[in-house]
């Protein structure tokens, strides 16, 4: 009896996964307690990429802080910019011209596509499929080139401004995006052929990392994580902002809440983004892209919360102004951080190899988690 208790199968093993592990998608460290190969406990450690962006907002003027949101979630920088700029515009009370609103919609949906494509490639790498990564990066590169032509940078766009946009889009660029959407639809069918019915992949991801509807709401999950568990909550529909007030956004949900559902939701969301891009490109109107705003922007007394539906979920900015050019206080609500809260519930009881697949399906970006 004693011999059995002391044997190696009975002893709990502590496994340190990360922070320099490719499957943790950045500098995220998980301390896993293992019994055999089964996970019995998880202690996440984060903060390796903390750069103090909330405090920096108190030390920089409103205009100076504009490039910083790009560095929160560097894979979907347009949404961070929209959250910060939107919060500032709501606090100051700036009306944005319609063309700027349409163009913001276009760049955000393009950015959502590029972010989801990166997720798809790396998620499949996590479960052991190499080639889809090459396919998705080919298309992602195309989108990044388009965004670079418009904004001047591949990831840190610095494109949105209080009251509009930094540059107008040329007609040629809009035509290029239109052609890109057509091209992407064809390529998208390839992904589905390549991945959807692959029995190895399906068996690998189905019925693991299940989180039910009630628990998803209690953990405060948002975005594809929540929608895969049957929570029909999309801010573009539920609390529309900008151009989404004028268009009908389909809310994609699945009921099961497992890793496979999260995959399906993101895939369908990419297709929905293509549909939205078609609508935006058809209805973009001519006009100015910048409203009349004072040169030295000051945040008036008051507070506001503005949130956008990013590719990972609800991305919110809580902004307090005190009549100066600096924010008195700014708080970011990063979706990845909240989605990570459910990690121990998702992982406990699974095998170590599943942990990598489940973490991949949460789609975290550590720049945003740690800020």
């Amino acid at each position, binding site marked *: 009896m004693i011999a059995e208790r002391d044997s190696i199968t009975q002893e709990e093993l502590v496994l340190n996964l990360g922070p320099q592990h490719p499957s943790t998608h950045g500098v995220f460290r998980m301390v896993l307690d293992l019994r055999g190969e089964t996970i019995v406990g998880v202690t996440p450690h984060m903060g390796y990429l903390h750069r103090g962006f909330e405090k920096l907002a108190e030390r*920089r003027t409103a*205009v*100076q*802080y*504009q*490039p*910083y949101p790009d560095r929160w979630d560097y894979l979907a920088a347009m949404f961070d910019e929209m959250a910060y700029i939107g919060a500032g515009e709501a606090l100051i009370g700036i009306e944005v011209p319609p063309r700027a609103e349409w163009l913001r919609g276009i760049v955000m949906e393009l950015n959502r596509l590029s972010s989801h494509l990166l997720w798809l490639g790396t998620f499949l790498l996590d479960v052991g499929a190499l*080639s889809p990564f090459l396919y998705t990066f*080919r298309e992602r*590169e195309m989108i990044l*080139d388009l965004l*670079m*032509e*418009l*904004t*001047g*940078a591949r990831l*840190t766009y*610095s494109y949105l401004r209080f009251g509009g946009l*930094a*540059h107008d889009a040329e007609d040629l660029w809009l035509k290029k995006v239109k052609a890109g959407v057509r091209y992407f639809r064809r390529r998208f069918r*390839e992904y589905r*052929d*390549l*991945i*959807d*019915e*692959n*029995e*190895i992949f*399906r068996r690998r991801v189905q019925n693991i990392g299940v989180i039910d509807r009630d628990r998803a709401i209690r953990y405060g999950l948002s975005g594809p994580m929540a929608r895969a568990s049957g929570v029909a909550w999309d801010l573009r529909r539920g609390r529309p902002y900008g151009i989404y007030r004028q268009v009908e956004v389909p809310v994609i949900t699945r009921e099961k809440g497992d890793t496979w559902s999260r995959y399906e939701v993101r895939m369908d969301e990419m297709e929905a983004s293509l549909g939205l891009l078609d609508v935006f490109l058809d209805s973009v109107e001519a006009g100015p892209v910048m409203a009349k705003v004072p040169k030295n922007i000051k945040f008036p007394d008051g507070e506001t919360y503005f949130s956008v539906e990013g590719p990972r979920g609800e991305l919110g900015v809580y902004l307090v102004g005190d009549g100066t050019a600096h924010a008195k206080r700014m708080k970011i609500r990063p979706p990845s951080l909240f989605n990570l809260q459910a990690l121990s519930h998702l992982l406990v009881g699974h095998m170590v190899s599943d942990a990598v697949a489940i973490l991949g399906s949460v789609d975290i970006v550590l720049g945003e988690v740690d800020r």
Partner: protein
Amino acid sequence: MRVKQIGGGLVKGLKVTGTHLFRQPVTRPYPEQHAYTPPRFRGAHRLIEDDCVVCHACDRVCPVNCMTIKGYRGEDRKFVLEQFDIDYNLCMFCNLCVEACPPKCLLMGPEFEISAATHNDLVWTLEDLSYERGESL
């Protein structure tokens, strides 16, 4: 039944792989070939020195204070630029200085391979930033 299922999905996937076998590569052989830099690309700065009026607008808007600018009032009461340094250890290529420049004499060029062996070499002076040098590249 199960065997059929496994076969179906994999064959469908292999068909996609098969069609790609005969496609042209899409990768760009970067160091051998020039990297793609569109006209709006935000690379290293270029300064048209004669147009600069030493107004410090770029310096004031810079979020990271990476500029050191000095000038003096010349004989015809116009400002003459004496020193214009950009510290690329700090610069984050956000374009705010270019947008703030009233005479539009500060631009950003396509140059991005600016790595250096020491921190000091990353501080660019007037000669490094000159428009003519940038054009001759």
